[in-house]
């Protein structure tokens, strides 16, 4: 037996069954990569990508439902092992869910986030082709870069280890740099991409220096091992403090929290709008998920300090994001600042490091998917029209020209603002209650006041749509598919606003499972 054979036989086969969603996505990405070289039929390429996403998403959906059934309902282990489906779930997803020699974990937390990331990406892909065709900027690269970026997010949300976290983060970001720059003959997109590349590259260097310091201090990359080492010797020395501070800065930079937000508005404005939606929603949500996982799994001993740091970032993001958004004339840039403010609302939940706070963070980031993606994608379908420049004046009289789109925009704006019965209200309420429960009064007050300030610009859009006569009379061209997908997003926002129980139960379950660290 050769040396290599001995090594491999000692390690055993990794469990590939739980990697099926990622494998499906990768195969789709490479298929699109090759198809794009042979065929010029754009519908085929877009259909193949969406099919791959649907396949992967359906697999995850079935597994999530199976796990929930096993956890929440009184099925005994014996009954479960007799049923083929339940024993499949039990063997692969409730036991043996750490694979690739401890570098990859597929727990319920990761699966739920992956499900919603896929949902968001499907909506982005539906809107991508009409937009880039109308802007004469079609590239087949969009599809497989988005898929590769999504695989990076998948790796990131299911990383139990600093190595896989770093690789996932970089796979996601590097694909995003290219995606932002892909806008034919448009200088702004190159400038936005370059700014994101430089600031994101600095963030990468900072994150990897943090990893180096943590490795030097603890001698391991594994989250759980780091936590163990820190509990045994909990003195805060230079290496640990430096590592923590740098990791915080790097993560805040990737999540575009103030004061590390400078790349966000420029990159968002420069990119094609569906890519902006992808950048502002799925990429952000994956970052929030990994922030949550790192604090729970790697640093349970310093949650107080970590929470305080995020509270400061969150307060700064809420204040600056909302006040700067007030003076924007361009709605796309305004929504970019609003997304910075939402980073503030979401990460504020980390100031209350309890099950309630983590559940609120997961809940708000999941529902932000629907309203954030909806607002950006609606903008993308409006922007296809000749003479639409995204300025606030363009929205004047939209209700007369396009009643359906105006109504949908109204729902998204009210949801981002947090008015019941939309789901944005429930999300903010969850964060607020978590903060009150942990007695972080000052942050709760900042949250409420900045929410009121944010009405200034969200309501301005609504007022422009409904209280003015249209200046231009020409008809707007929005296809039925786009209206349908936007309508679905708006209906989800309304339904979840009236009946949030299911998602709330789901997020409470995943946060308590994450805190219990089941099986790891």
């Amino acid at each position: 037996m050769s040396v290599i054979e001995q090594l491999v036989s000692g390690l055993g086969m990794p469990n590939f069954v739980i990697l099926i969603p990622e494998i499906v996505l990768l195969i789709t990405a490479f298929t699109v990569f090759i198809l794009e070289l042979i065929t010029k039929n754009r519908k085929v390429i877009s259909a193949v990508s969406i099919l791959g996403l649907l396949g992967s998403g359906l697999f995850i959906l079935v597994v999530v439902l199976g796990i929930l059934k096993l956890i929440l309902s009184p099925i005994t282990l014996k009954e479960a092992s007799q049923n083929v489906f339940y024993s499949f779930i039990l063997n692969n997803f409730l036991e043996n869910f750490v694979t690739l020699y401890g570098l990859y974990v597929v727990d319920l937390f990761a699966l739920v986030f992956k499900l919603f990331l896929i949902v968001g990406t499907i909506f982005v892909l539906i809107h991508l082709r009409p937009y880039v065709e109308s802007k004469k900027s079609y590239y087949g690269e969009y599809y497989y870069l988005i898929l590769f970026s999504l695989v990076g997010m998948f790796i990131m949300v299911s990383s139990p280890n600093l190595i896989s976290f770093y690789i996932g983060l970089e796979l996601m970001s590097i694909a995003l740099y290219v995606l932002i720059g892909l806008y034919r003959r448009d200088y702004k997109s190159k400038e936005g991409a370059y700014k994101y590349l430089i600031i994101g590259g600095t963030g990468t260097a900072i994150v990897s220096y943090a990893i180096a310091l943590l490795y030097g201090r603890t001698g391991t990359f594994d989250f759980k091992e780091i936590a163990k080492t820190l509990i045994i010797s909990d003195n805060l020395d230079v290496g640990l403090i430096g590592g923590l501070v740098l990791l915080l800065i790097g993560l805040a930079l990737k999540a575009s929290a103030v004061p590390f937000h400078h790349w966000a508005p420029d990159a968002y404005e420069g990119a094609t709008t569906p890519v902006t939606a992808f950048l502002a929603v799925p990429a952000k949500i994956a970052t929030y998920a990994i922030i949550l996982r790192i604090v729970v799994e790697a640093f349970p001993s310093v949650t107080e300090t970590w929470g305080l740091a995020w509270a400061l970032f969150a307060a700064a993001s809420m204040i600056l994001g909302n006040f700067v958004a007030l003076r924007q004339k361009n709605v796309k840039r305004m929504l970019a600042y609003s997304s910075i403010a939402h980073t503030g609302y979401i990460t504020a939940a980390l100031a209350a490091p309890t099950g309630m706070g983590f559940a609120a963070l997961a809940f708000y980031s999941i529902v932000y998917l629907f309203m954030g993606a909806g607002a950006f994608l609606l903008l993308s379908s409006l922007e296809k029209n000749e003479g639409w420049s995204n300025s606030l004046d363009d929205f004047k009289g939209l209700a007369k020209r396009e009643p359906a789109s105006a109504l949908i925009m109204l729902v998204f704006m009210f949801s981002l603002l947090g008015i019941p019965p939309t789901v944005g209200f429930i999300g903010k309420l969850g964060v607020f209650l978590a903060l009150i429960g942990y007695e972080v009064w000052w942050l709760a007050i900042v949250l409420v006041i900045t929410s009121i300030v944010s009405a200034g610009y969200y309501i301005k859009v609504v007022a422009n749509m409904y209280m003015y006569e249209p200046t231009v009379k020409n008809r707007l061209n929005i296809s039925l598919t786009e209206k349908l997908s936007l309508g679905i997003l708006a209906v989800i926002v309304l339904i979840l606003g009236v009946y949030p129980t299911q998602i709330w139960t789901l997020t409470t379950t995943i946060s308590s499972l994450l805190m219990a660290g089941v099986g790891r």
Partner: protein
Amino acid sequence: MSIPYEYYVALSGLLMVLGLVGVTVRKNIIAVLLSTELMLNAVNIAFVAFDMKLHDVAGQVFVFFILTIAAAEAAIGLGLVMAIYRLRKDVDVEKLTELKL
């Protein structure tokens, strides 16, 4: 006589700071890109130094990942610099700003 690992860590810290300063003060977009690469290489030195301290090889494995990622970033960065130069015939950071508050 071998040099203690702290010296290497100090060197890497110094390079990291130099890179950060470079990103903030340089005016040429290629030099800014170079500064980010400098920071990533500083991290490599830190990893190898910590491996010396811990008598381990895991850090050196991480260095390989950083090298590949740095290469990918440099490729994309230079591509963007080319695209920017074609559109504007300039590489000065201050003359290239269109997107502002």
